[in-house]
């Protein structure tokens, strides 16, 4: 698993093997998550976090990111904030979690109230609303690209890929409640992982 990969060539497949875990300084965590917060439009914090924290900085591995996503969805609270708590905890313990969440939420808090104040003065305009649709479209694209980059890979991926497709079908297309679907599919998927040690991700 520990083959050398040139930094520019890091992909979803190789990312996990590139960098061993190390503690990140609190100011760096705070700054990284502040930018994440003020630029994550359309409620796509997880996709944005993958792009900036996993793909660019390699602070955590693909596997850690994905298990964080799964845990963030079955826990109470906002998925993006929950994921941020876990990543912050992984990077810098309790202080890291506080720094990450503070960074993530402080910018949007100020921006959202400022927008409400501006809205009270000038009201909304059709052009601004349309512009927001355009930003939302790009944000959805980022989410799709992230999901597709993280599709199961490796030699024996048929089983995991089926699990992913089943999840998309049940939760995304048929809109079944997420929790029962996860409670059903996750054990099967873990069983598959146990039966096929070290294939793909």
């Amino acid at each position, binding site marked *: 698993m520990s083959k050398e990969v040139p930094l520019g060539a890091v992909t979803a497949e190789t990312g996990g093997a590139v960098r061993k875990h190390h503690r990140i300084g609190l100011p760096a965590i705070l700054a990284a998550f502040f930018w994440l917060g003020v630029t994550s439009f359309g409620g796509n914090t997880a996709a944005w976090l993958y792009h900036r924290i996993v793909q660019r900085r390699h602070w955590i591995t693909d596997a850690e990111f994905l298990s964080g996503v799964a*845990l963030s969805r079955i826990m109470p609270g906002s998925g993006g904030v929950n994921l941020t708590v876990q990543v912050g905890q992984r990077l810098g313990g309790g202080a890291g979690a506080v720094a990450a969440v503070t960074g993530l939420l402080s910018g949007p808090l100020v921006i959202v109230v400022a927008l409400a104040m501006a809205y009270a003065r000038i009201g909304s305009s059709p052009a601004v609303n349309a512009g927001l649709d355009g930003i*939302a479209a790009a944000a959805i694209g980022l989410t*799709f690209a992230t999901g597709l980059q993280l599709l199961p890979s490796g030699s024996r991926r048929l089983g995991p890929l089926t699990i992913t497709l089943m999840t998309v079908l049940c939760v995304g297309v048929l809109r079944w409640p997420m929790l029962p679907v996860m409670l059903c599919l996750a054990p099967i998927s873990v069983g598959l992982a146990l039966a096929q040690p070290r294939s793909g991700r």
Partner: protein
Amino acid sequence: MPDDFRTLLSLVLVFVPLSLLSIGGGASLLADMEHQSVGVHGWTTPREFADLFAISRAAPGPGTMLAALIGWKATGWAGAVTATVALYLPSSLVVYGAARLWGRWRGSVWHTAVERGLAPVAAGLLLSGGIAVLRVSPGGPAVWASAIIATVLLLRWPRLHPVVLFAAGGALFGLAALW
């Protein structure tokens, strides 16, 4: 200012339970927030609530930043901060505890198996999230087409900065509406 203090207290009492009950995302939360802030406490009118919801969707950050706006409407900046902390702190503490517990077993066989087993489910959840946002988006076919174009661009050039795409999408749609 005892009145302000009382409002802050009721914000805490409204949002702390919501924080712990909101498993599975913000959609179920929205109905409760609406009920509490319009019906029970009268912090906003129905019309104001709809406006605040639209504003919260336009701003960056988690969709549930609507809570901050309700707090702001109720009693200014102190309310905004109080509502935000009340909504995110309790659930974050639960998740933090779970993450620490989970990290303790790092390296064990079953930890690795669970992590690998959750990965395909999580990838499916991410894709489903994109579909869900697409479904509620008011923009119609233009948004669908642009989302697909953005997806292809990002897959083809992974080093492309998403902010470039956000700016391009916003400018394109904004100008099209003016025209």
